[in-house]
Structures are given as C-alpha cells and as structure tokens.
C-alpha cells in the first residue's frame, strides 16, 4: 500500500496529470484496493479539509492583491519608493526591490507581484542602461519575497496543514523576507558599483511629499492589512476581508482607474484561482489522512532519527528536497503534500514548527523563479515579453544569492522567531 501511495502519484505527476487528480486517483486506489476505510470517507475528509474559516484568508488576500495590483496602487508605490531611494546608486533596481517588499505586504501572490511591479519598472530599468538579464532576473526573483512577507498564501496553507498559528507564522515571515531583500539589495549594490551604472539623483523633498500625498492610501495598505493582525484585533481571515473592503474603496472610489466591471472580473479571477488551489487542499486532506492512518510520517521520522543523522544535515536534506520539489510543483500543492510528511521529522529533531514553516515556504518561494515550472518565469515571460532562455540567464545570480539567504535563515532560527516574543 505504501508503494501505491508513493509510486502511483509520482508516475501520474510525471505523465502530466492535474495535481488534484494525482492525489484523487491515489486516494481512490487505496480506498478501493485495500478497503481500510469506507469509500464515503473520501467525501467526508475532503469536505472537512476545506470547511475551515481560516482558509478564507486565501481568496480574500488574492482578491485584495489582484485589485490593488490593477487599480493603480502599484504605480503609486513605485513613485513613492523611488522618491525615497532615488538618491542612492542603483536607485531604479532598488525602487523595484523596495516596491516588491511593500507590495508583498499587500499581496500574498508572487505571480501578482511580478505582473504588478514588472510591467511598470522593467522598461525604466532598461532605459537606465541595465542589461535585460539583470532587470528581468531581479523582477522575477525578488517577487518570491511576497511568499514570505505576510500576508502569504504559502504560510496560510502551511498553518492550516500543520495546525500552526497563522498569526505566529505571519510574524515569523517578516524578518526572513527582509533578510532575503537585504541579500538581493547587497547584490544590486555590488552590481551597480562594478558596472558603474545607476548614479542616483539628489533627494527631492518636494517629490517625496508629492509622492507621499499621491500614494498615501497605497502606502497605508500594509498597515491596514497587517496592523490589526499584529495588534491582536483581527484574525488573519478578518484582516483579509478588511483588505478587500479597503482595496475596493481605494481602487473603486478613490483612484477610479478601473471600473466596476473590472472589479467583478477580478472577483471571478480570484475565486477561479482559489478553486484551483482549494480542490488540491481538499484532496490533499484525504491523501494526508491516508498517510497518517497508515503511519507513514511516523515511520519516516523513526527511520531517519534511528540512523543518527545530525539535525543540521537533516535540515540541509530537507532544503535540497524542497528546492527540487519547488522547481517541479506549485507552492500550495507542495506544502499540502509535504507538510504532513516532514513536520513530525522536523519536530523530532527539535526544529520549531514556525521556523520550519518559514524554511519550507522560503524553499518553495525560490522554486517560483527556477526552471522548469517557476510560475514567476511564465508570468515574467508574458509581462516582460522575453523568451524563457533570457530569463533563465537572468535569474542565476539571484538564485545563488537566495540560496545564501536560505542557509542563513535555516541555520539562524532567531531570525524567524525573534518577532514572536512581541505577540
């Protein structure tokens, strides 16, 4: 039976079966062939896997992010960040990076971030003389921070999957997200120094004030979205709902750059994306349940801890596994399948569940901009109008930098856990 649960999904996945079908076929095969549980349990476990109020944060954050990305928020954020960092060397790449950080605190989707920021900054970076590979590599890879900086769809799914507090995961994601941004920033700094590109313009207080006035509702969005969560006032789902109302008010009533028709289309698109994710949540619930009642995670944990591998080596192996998985699967699917398997192992070697969530999501975030299936690459290809081969060349230095940041975040748990004491 274990072979069926491991080999069958791998074979179906390689053949290109939809991911929800891979898990559904496997679960149905186990139920029909081995008869250890009644077949009606398929329905019951699937339903209970998505019958969770906490999961509603996912569609709400997707909708809020989509609305803000299309409704003029990203353009105002870019102007504001540029007014702040415009005087430093490499100001345009730093503007793109800074805006990605701020936009990541509104949207939990890396693809939405590439689309929103990439489309508005790529040409300007090229006009300043930077090579196409550098600009595309920066935009496609820095968007991965959106997966770490809350609100993060990946952290929500990890929280649901591992029964870990989403608020604690959100707090834990902030510093690792900023560390990753700092590593990218260091590379930009080194690159601009070496190439002599991107001399900054003198700081203009007038432009800063004008950009702040113009973009105040956009700049305030992360505070509105996340402030209530960290202050302990709202649950993540409530905050996500507030983010939607805020986005509707700002985009629909204040900026008016898109009409109600586009807002409705955004709502449809967000639920469509949610459907693609949640059907996997439902079926992965059955798969995870079958794994658990058959003792697979416990057996895996026992087998690995029995051979006395040091925890640092296990973490390194988990990182390698997750990096490879991240190259093949989307973040949500990977979290839903691998969390029940790896969480007992991580706990057994003394890794804090919150820290483990950050490690897992960061690995899979790197997978969003690595071949062959990095979603950011495909969005970047469409938005930046570049062939994949150019994008592949562009991401190499950013991939190396991200791996260095990953190692730092993996082996210094304090980076993830430092902010938890303030909750």
């Amino acid at each position: 039976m274990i072979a069926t649960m491991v080999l069958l999904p791998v074979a179906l996945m390689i053949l290109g079966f939809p991911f929800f079908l891979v898990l559904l076929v496997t679960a149905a095969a186990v139920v029909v062939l081995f008869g250890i549980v009644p077949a009606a349990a398929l329905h019951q476990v699937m339903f209970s896997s998505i019958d969770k109020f906490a999961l509603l944060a996912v569609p709400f954050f997707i909708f809020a992010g989509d609305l803000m990305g299309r409704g003029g928020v990203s353009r105002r954020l870019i102007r504001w960040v540029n007014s702040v960092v415009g005087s430093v060397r490499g100001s345009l790449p730093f503007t793109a990076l800074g805006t990605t950080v701020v936009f990541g605190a509104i949207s939990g989707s890396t693809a939405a971030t590439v689309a929103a920021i990439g489309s508005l900054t790529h040409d300007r970076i090229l006009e300043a003389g930077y090579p196409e590979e550098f600009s595309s590599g920066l935009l496609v890879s820095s968007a991965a921070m959106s997966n770490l900086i809350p609100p993060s769809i990946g952290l929500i799914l990890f929280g649901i999957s591992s029964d870990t507090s989403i608020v604690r995961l959100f707090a834990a994601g902030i510093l690792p997200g900023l560390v990753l941004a700092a590593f990218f920033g260091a590379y930009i700094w080194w690159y601009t120094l070496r190439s002599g590109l991107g001399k900054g313009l003198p700081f203009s207080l007038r432009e800063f004030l004008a950009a702040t006035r113009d973009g105040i509702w956009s700049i305030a969005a992360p505070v509105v979205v996340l402030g209530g969560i960290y202050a302990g006032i709202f649950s993540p789902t409530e905050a996500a709902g507030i983010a939607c109302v805020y986005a509707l008010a700002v985009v629909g009533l204040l900026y008016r750059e898109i009409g109600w028709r586009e807002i409705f289309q955004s709502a449809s698109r967000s639920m469509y994306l949610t459907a693609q994710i949640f059907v996997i949540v439902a079926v992965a619930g059955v798969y995870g349940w079958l794994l658990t009642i058959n003792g697979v995670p416990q057996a895996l944990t026992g087998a690995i801890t029995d051979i006395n591998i040091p925890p640092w080596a296990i973490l390194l192996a988990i990182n390698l596994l997750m990096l490879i998985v991240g190259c093949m699967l989307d973040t949500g699917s990977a979290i839903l399948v691998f969390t029940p398997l790896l969480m007992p192992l991580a706990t057994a070697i003394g890794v804090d569940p919150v820290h483990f969530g950050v490690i897992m999501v960061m690995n899979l975030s790197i997978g969003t901009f690595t071949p062959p299936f990095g979603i950011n690459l495909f969005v970047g290809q469409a938005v930046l109008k570049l062939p994949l081969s150019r994008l592949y060349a562009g991401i190499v230095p950013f991939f190396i930098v991200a791996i260095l940041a990953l190692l730092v975040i993996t082996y210094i748990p304090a980076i993830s856990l430092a902010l938890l004491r303030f909750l």
Partner: protein
Amino acid sequence: MSRWLLSTIPMAVIGVLMLVSVALNGANIMGRYLFGSPIFWAEEVMVYLTIWGVFIGMIAVAYKGEHLSMDLFSAGLRGKPRIALHVVITAVLAICCLFTAAQSWTVVRLFFDTGAVSASSKVPLVIPHSALLIGFTLISCAAVIGMRTQLKAHAAAMARGGDRP
C-alpha cells in the same frame, strides 16, 4: 453553447459568490467591532459560499483544462501521442470524479434523510455537502466536453494547415 454553460456562467457565479463573501465578512467585522453585535452565522455561511465557489469554479477550470499540473513530460509530446495522453487524462478524470460523486451521494442522502443542520447558521447540511456531489459530477462532464471542443479546434487548425499541437 457549451462554453457559455461551462465557463461563462460559472465564472459569473463565482464572481458573485466572492463579492457576497466579501460583503458578508465586511458586515460581520463592522457588526463585531463597531456595534458589538457580530453576525453569528456569517463565518459558517462564508465557508459554505466558498466551498460552492470552489466547485463551481472547478467546472470552468475543467472545461478550459487549466488545472495546476506538472507538464514536463506531456509538453514534449506532439501530435497523436499528445492527443492520446490528453484523452487518457480526461477519461481518468471523468471516472475518478464520478466515483467521488457517487461517494458524495451516499453522504448527501444521509444528510437529507436525517435533516441535519449546521451549528450556527442552521443551514441544512445537505446544501454545502451537495457542492461536492454536483461539483464532481459537472467537473467530469465539463472535462469531457472541454476536451471534445479542444480536439475539434485542433482538427480544424490541422485542416487549415496550422500549428501541430
């Protein structure tokens, strides 16, 4: 006609469900924090709206064939092998979804017979649970019809001397 039924209408319905959920969440939060009187049934109903949204959305996903998948192997196939794999995947999807719908039928019938209702909103449980029954049934239909439409479009493109899939 099939596109209208299996893509346009589901997309419109899920847009409405999303906006209703957002409105309900906003009203609940305002009720709780401004007026000290939350809508006690709101959370349950929002979850049920989302469950329906997921399975109605999946009808459109199945019709368009836009499932999340890893197509490393299938992307390399051309011509008849690619079509054959597409047919096999659709057939497995249809069979599996119908099998799951049959299991859902057992559970839905049970809720119908017992008349069980949810804890807060007193919504008959047959309503949210039917989302899976109806959803999986229509997903299998949409996948088959969507594949037929895509194969017809492909055949027409081949007849015009267009790109090979």
